[in-house]
């Protein structure tokens, strides 16, 4: 090999310089290690499940209880009431049968089915389209089946809104704070430019409380529980009643069941 003293010295110098900056690179690498709190754990009181699911007992609902359910959700999550319908934020809302269950009704439905609105919300699908299309993993599915939003990561591309076949997602076209007089400090509001939706009250389950809408029901209009637990209220209701789900033909496997 044709090497001279000169090239040897050059390489030796470069190596020495490399060693000299090692402490600096070490320090940089140190900073990248996050101080994960090793003690981080769910709250002792947290409600856990294999798969969370909800049963909506449509017949039990009254005008009053529909209002109460929606109001409880709005209060629990600082959801603004925006007069402009195009900017509306919806977590749980009223929909008519023909719109909620297109193709599932016949020509001659009883009037209490066709004319009374029913409550619809995010279905927390088993194979959620919104999660598949989200480019930033801002929306994801937890092990217990809840389809969650991480608003910190949402870039507002609205792919999830295009993906969701149920219209369960709303985009913040404007700052929601303008429409909230007294936001509850225990739950964040959202900011302009993110998508939001029902989270099955993950923040309440984490401290051992049932979802706000379920708690607002006086007569068991909404049932919430673990699909994998045969003794849960949801499993019992599903065994005892014929239930339907929204747009089952799409294969998203919704986990919100309706007793019509």
């Amino acid at each position, binding site marked *: 090999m044709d090497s001279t003293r000169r090239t040897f010295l050059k390489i030796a110098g470069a190596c020495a310089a490399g060693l000299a900056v090692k402490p600096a690179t070490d320090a940089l690498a140190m900073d990248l290690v*996050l101080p994960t*709190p090793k003690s*981080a*754990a769910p709250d002792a009181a947290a409600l856990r499940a294999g798969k969370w699911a909800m049963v909506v007992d449509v017949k039990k609902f009254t005008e009053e209880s529909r209002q109460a359910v929606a109001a409880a959700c709005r209060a629990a999550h600082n959801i603004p009431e925006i007069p402009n319908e195009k900017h509306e934020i919806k977590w749980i809302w009223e929909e008519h049968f023909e719109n909620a269950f297109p193709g599932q009704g016949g020509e001659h439905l009883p009037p209490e089915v066709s004319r009374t609105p029913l409550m619809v919300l995010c279905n927390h699908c088993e194979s959620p389209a919104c999660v598949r299309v989200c480019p930033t993993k801002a929306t*994801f599915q937890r092990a217990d089946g809840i389809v969650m939003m991480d*608003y910190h990561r949402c870039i507002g591309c609205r792919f999830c809104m295009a993906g969701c076949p149920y219209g369960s997602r709303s985009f913040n076209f404007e700052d929601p704070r303008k429409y909230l007089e007294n936001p509850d400090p*225990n739950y964040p509001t959202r*900011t302009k430019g993110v998508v939001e939706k029902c989270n099955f009250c993950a923040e309440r389950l984490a*401290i051992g409380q049932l979802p706000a809408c379920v708690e607002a029901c006086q007569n068991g209009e909404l049932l919430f529980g673990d699909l994998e637990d045969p003794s849960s209220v949801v499993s019992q209701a599903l065994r005892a009643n014929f239930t339907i789900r929204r747009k089952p033909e799409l294969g998203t496997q919704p986990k919100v069941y309706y007793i019509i």
Partner: protein
Amino acid sequence: MYNTGKIITGLVIFFVVFTFPFWFNGAKAVPAPKPSLDTPKINELKAASEDGTVTCLMPTEYMKSEHMVILNEWRTADVRRADYTASYNGELYPMSLSKTCMECHSNKADFCDRCHNYASVTPYCWNCHVEPKKAEGE
């Protein structure tokens, strides 16, 4: 050299404008901000402690430089893994900006904002997270 006058004048003007921040502020250093620890909750803790001092979750120096790292980790733990509490100094705390941090540091304007303004950083925490309301009569 052509256009000497114009070039020199231009250079002088550029130099003056470019160095504006330096000579306008003189050599005066803006004093480092002192975040206020005067909140009802902290005073209460101070009165309750034996030596009159209170430590945050971690030592003050660490909190000063790394609080954002803690918050970032809390966010991941809470949102992604549904972990709700973590223990610091042998006590369990909810990993929550508004429930844990802001419970003691309820004076956002005199605590958070002072340093953030000084360092000219605008964290977007409060675009969503709601800052605690001032107590009655404050």
